[in-house]
């Protein structure tokens, strides 16, 4: 089957947004790089999950950031945000936004980070 058009296969056979039905924006719920998500169910407990949705749910069994989900299941950030938004909408995931960005982080958090770095 070697033909001069072989290079065509350099592109992913399934375009990234095919996973999300072509949607590039989700309601997103303000999902950010470090928004933490955690699964309420295991993939086995949910019927008819697409493979990417099952993979995302699997890596969220412990609290994990949106950026880490993207790195672990190797899908671009925007695609992961759509997938996670859908899982949240379906009640399979809960999320915790980062502290509001218009507020300075509390002195308590800053001190805890400083102490944590010193303990490394």
């Amino acid at each position, binding site marked *: 089957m070697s033909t001069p058009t072989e290079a065509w296969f350099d592109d992913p056979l399934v375009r990234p947004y095919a996973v999300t039905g072509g949607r590039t924006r989700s309601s997103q719920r303000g999902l950010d*790089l470090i928004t933490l998500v955690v699964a309420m169910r295991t993939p086995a407990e949910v019927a008819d999950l697409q493979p990417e949705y099952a993979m995302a749910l699997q890596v969220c069994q412990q609290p994990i950031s949106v950026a880490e989900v993207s790195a672990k299941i190797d899908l671009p950030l925007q695609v992961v945000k759509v997938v996670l938004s859908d899982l949240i909408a379906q009640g399979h995931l809960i999320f*915790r936004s980062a502290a509001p960005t218009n507020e300075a982080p509390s002195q308590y958090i800053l001190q805890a*980070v*400083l102490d944590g*770095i010193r303990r490394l």
Partner: protein
Amino acid sequence: MASEGSDRRLTTAVKIVVAGGFGVGKTTLVGSVSEVPPLRTEELITEASSRVDDLAGVEAKTTTTVALDFGRITISPELILYLFGTPGQNRFWFMWDELARGALGAVVLADTRRLDSCFPAVDFFERRGLPFIVAVNCFDDAYRYGTEEVRAALDLDPQTPVLLCDARDRESTKQVLVTLMHHVMAGSRLARTH
């Protein structure tokens, strides 16, 4: 734990940004303290290509990916610190916005052989009002400038800490992050007394 009336079932995440020119050692610095090998996430960018020889009226779009490298430090079961390296290419400024939003502070990693490559980062954080420090990564073959020479060359405020570091060394990177946190906390105390 100081409760702010929020749901504590989930952990809190905070981040620190590590910026600097291409090849200055950002991912090395992140990796020296991260509890996992640096992770990589990608953002898809669709941009109008602006080649001069494009046919008039025909707009081509290309999709590129911007890679972000980051590490993780679990401070406690309730608190996770993420360290994000900025993309090497300066044209992806909108990514810097998302990175800087809500960050505790930033480390500008400098290489004295190419000090000008960290000007854009210094500029960006000054304009954003995000507290930052400058850490000079001491490469073996680079002339060791003093921190005051670096401060003068970058035209930094007297309050902005400058220190020398070795991004490969865990203790050295810890010192960089401790210095940043002291600077952030001094600024936040000052802000509350005004």
